[in-house]
């Protein structure tokens, strides 16, 4: 196992800002989750709602996603990020884009 720590990202679409394509609208749509490399060749976790990107990590560490679930207006993403990994084997839980447990 690589010395990454893992995150659960819990995103509420009505609360996400900035790049969220529909912060107050219905969560209906097609959600694709994955990662892309940024200009610094770091892996950035993200999802796309109907093709519009929502970035989940800051691009300073290597991150990826492992899954997504949508229920009602809630979007849940799990994944990992090795940014600032003082506790490399500890899971983290993000709620409203903030780490909530770990």
């Amino acid at each position, binding site marked *: 196992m690589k010395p990454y720590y893992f995150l*659960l990202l819990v995103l509420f679409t009505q609360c996400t800002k900035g790049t969220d394509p529909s912060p107050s609208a219905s969560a209906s749509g097609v959600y694709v*989750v*994955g990662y892309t*490399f940024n200009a610094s060749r770091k*892996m950035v976790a993200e999802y796309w709602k109907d093709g*519009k990107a929502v970035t989940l990590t800051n691009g300073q560490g290597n991150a990826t996603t492992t899954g*997504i679930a*949508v229920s009602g207006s809630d979007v849940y993403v799990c994944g990992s990020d090795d940014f600032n990994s003082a506790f490399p084997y*500890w899971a983290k839980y993000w709620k409203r884009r903030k780490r909530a*447990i770990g």
Partner: protein
Amino acid sequence: MDCLAIKAIATSGTDLLMLGLSTSGWVYWKNGTPVTIIDTTSFQVNALATSASDVYVSGYSEPAGLLTVRNATCWKNGSIVFRAPSPSYAMGVAVSGSDVYLAGYIPGNDAQHNTAVYWKNGVAVTLTDGTTNAMAYSILVSGSDVYAVGAENKVACYWKNGVKVNLGDGSAVSEAFSMAIKGSAIHAAGYLGSHPCWWVNGTAQSLEGGTADGAALQVVVN
């Protein structure tokens, strides 16, 4: 019990389910309460699916030191339901009524000759003939149709009731890891060339920023 990794997530009604690794081994969490996945040997898990209050997990045995012994395995509520003959790997899992399906592959004599397969209630249905390199990464059941999605010779494809439909055109390497169906739209997620890709009915769609290198790993429709 601390969480070390989360490999998959799903909702079922008002329940939130996560599959991952804890300091006590592989578990799934139902609304935060861990349920240990029990086996007699080392193993890996890959995906989960739910049916009513039951939780199904796919994976494979991985005993130390025996690289040729891998058994695709299905667990229900933490206990083994069935285990396929070795060697075999299970990636995805789906449940439809009383039937449980695993998707995966049977390795050949070298890394370039994997056979894509799914198991229905433990009975293998091969999707390719072993002369190519094919893998099925996930599976879903829609009505009476069984869809497995993956790639053959690095061309993304799915198999509908065993009949292959290509997603990539072969001009660049591609694989599909996940699919979802809503109405007449068949969605798939994977990569094409070095880029993340979302296909709808076989046509690659635009992803914002998707010209960067990367991959799409799962698609869901809400």
